């Protein structure tokens, strides 16, 4: 019997597979297909203070081995999420949930995390810092070490729950940003978010997405995610949730060997809604092939 359990900053998950925020809604649609309790956890759709409609249509574009999205953090706002969605999610999934938190100012991140602190079903706060800072000309919080650390410090101060900072890959030195988050008190790092990209509609001669740019996700970005998880593993001691292009158990193991303690699966769920379930079912045989009894032994296994 292979032990699939992993521990993320003290939070124990029955296995390392976690649907990534924005690709699993609040679990409802998938719960019609399979029992969500097979999952390690799930990271629900990014929450902001106010309800957000998100960007105009079109919001989705095709890419080689992947897709672009510019959904724009559509969600009903933190109060509705806490009052309606979290209690419902708790009926679908009985383990610790991961709350993905957005924000357009330090104050908003703080307020959102403070409110989520009282939500018992939420085990981990995953703070998405790929949001533009309205007080700094719209530059992303995740684009430099200083502002990443600021967000970390702000949310760290208002919650007892473990805080994982979810990094943007659109930076030069991801290790430096992860280190700044660790020094500012982060309990873990999640990476990568989507890669900034664009498609153009040749006939309309305009960017295809109404938002012009979108985030690239799916298998196309997998080798980028492996490299960045590797870099962050070399840079910090706190646990890493790896994410980006995972579509199979082998991919999950590869991200773990690069340094991930657990693995999020995003776009692959959209193409095949059973992806996470299939990966989890394939993990024991893969661990045997790779000669480990505890899957957690894979973490960082390719570093020497």
């Amino acid at each position: 019997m292979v032990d699939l359990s992993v521990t993320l900053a003290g939070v124990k998950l029955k296995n390392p597979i976690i649907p990534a925020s924005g690709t699993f809604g609040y679990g409802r649609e998938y719960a019609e297909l399979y029992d969500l309790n097979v999952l390690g956890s799930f990271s629900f759709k990014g929450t902001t203070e106010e309800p957000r409609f998100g960007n105009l249509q079109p919001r989705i574009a095709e890419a080689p081995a992947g897709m672009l999205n510019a959904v724009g953090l559509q969600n009903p706002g933190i109060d509705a999420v806490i009052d309606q969605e979290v209690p419902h999610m708790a009926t679908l999934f009985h383990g610790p949930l991961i709350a993905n938190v957005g924000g357009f100012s330090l104050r908003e991140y703080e307020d959102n995390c403070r409110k989520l602190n009282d939500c018992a079903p939420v085990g981990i706060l995953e703070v998405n810092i790929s949001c533009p800072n309205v007080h700094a000309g719209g530059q992303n919080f995740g684009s430099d070490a200083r502002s990443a650390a600021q967000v970390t410090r702000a949310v760290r101060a208002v919650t007892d729950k473990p805080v994982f900072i979810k990094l943007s890959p659109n930076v030069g030195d991801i290790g430096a940003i992860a280190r700044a988050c660790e020094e500012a008190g982060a309990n873990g790092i999640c990476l990568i978010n989507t890669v900034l990209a664009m498609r153009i509609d040749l006939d309309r001669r305009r960017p295809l997405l109404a938002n012009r740019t979108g985030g690239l996700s799916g298998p196309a970005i997998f080798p980028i995610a492996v490299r960045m998880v590797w870099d962050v593993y070399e840079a910090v001691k706190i646990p890493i949730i790896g994410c980006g292009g995972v579509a199979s158990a082998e991919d999950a193991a590869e991200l773990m060997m690069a340094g991930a303690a657990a693995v999020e699966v995003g776009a692959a769920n959209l193409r095949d809604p059973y992806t996470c379930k299939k990966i989890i079912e394939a993990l024991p045989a893969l661990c045997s092939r790779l000669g480990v009894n505890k899957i957690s032994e894979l973490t960082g296994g390719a570093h020497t």
Partner: protein
Amino acid sequence: MKESCFTLEKIRTLTEDTCELILRGDTSAITRPGQFVNLALPEKFLRRPISVCDWWEDTLVLLIRAVGEGSRCLTQSRPGTVFNVLSGLGNGFATSSAGARPVLVGGGVGAAPLYGLARRMAQVGTAPTVALGFRRAVDALYIREFEALGCRVMTATEDGSLGTRGFVTDSMAEACWDYAYVCGPTPMLRAVCDLPWLTDGQYSFEARMGCGFGACMGCSISTVHGSRRVCKDGPIFTREEIVW
């Protein structure tokens, strides 16, 4: 919703860019005309949403117009090809809410879901009137199939090469219907919606989809009830819900 495999049994060319595909597989998740299926293609990451044209027992009929690489690949498939399909997606048409004199209005390949609807209406009562718009006579499709159901079919072509010259709305001058089921390109939906005498009906919408089953918010549009997902809350929206 159900994930299963469908095998292409027959493919028939309808016009220079549109084919009818007859597939064999498990159709049990399809409950209403106007629903759609989402087909996975080996070379494409995103699935391709296609309206159910008709279905029975283990048979699924789709009409596909080649507009890009994915749909071209579908129209060029050979019998025997197996597709991974998510079936039974979307709300579909609600036939119970129709008025006494319904009309089905289709633009191009938008005729597809109306056929399944018309067949079911004909089965339980009278065959509805159908108004179909095409660019040219050579683009016309499924007219005989609707007629075989007993439907009166009115056609319009942009160049006048078949039926009324103009848009599908121009073929509907009688204005004697009180309810419309509409599927076609967005400008057509809007033109039908703007007909002052046709205040009630159900409209099928399109949007680029990430998942097709309600999880990603990729397809959200504004309605009078706020944001709604075309894939899950739609693709059929009633006239009073629509915000242009």
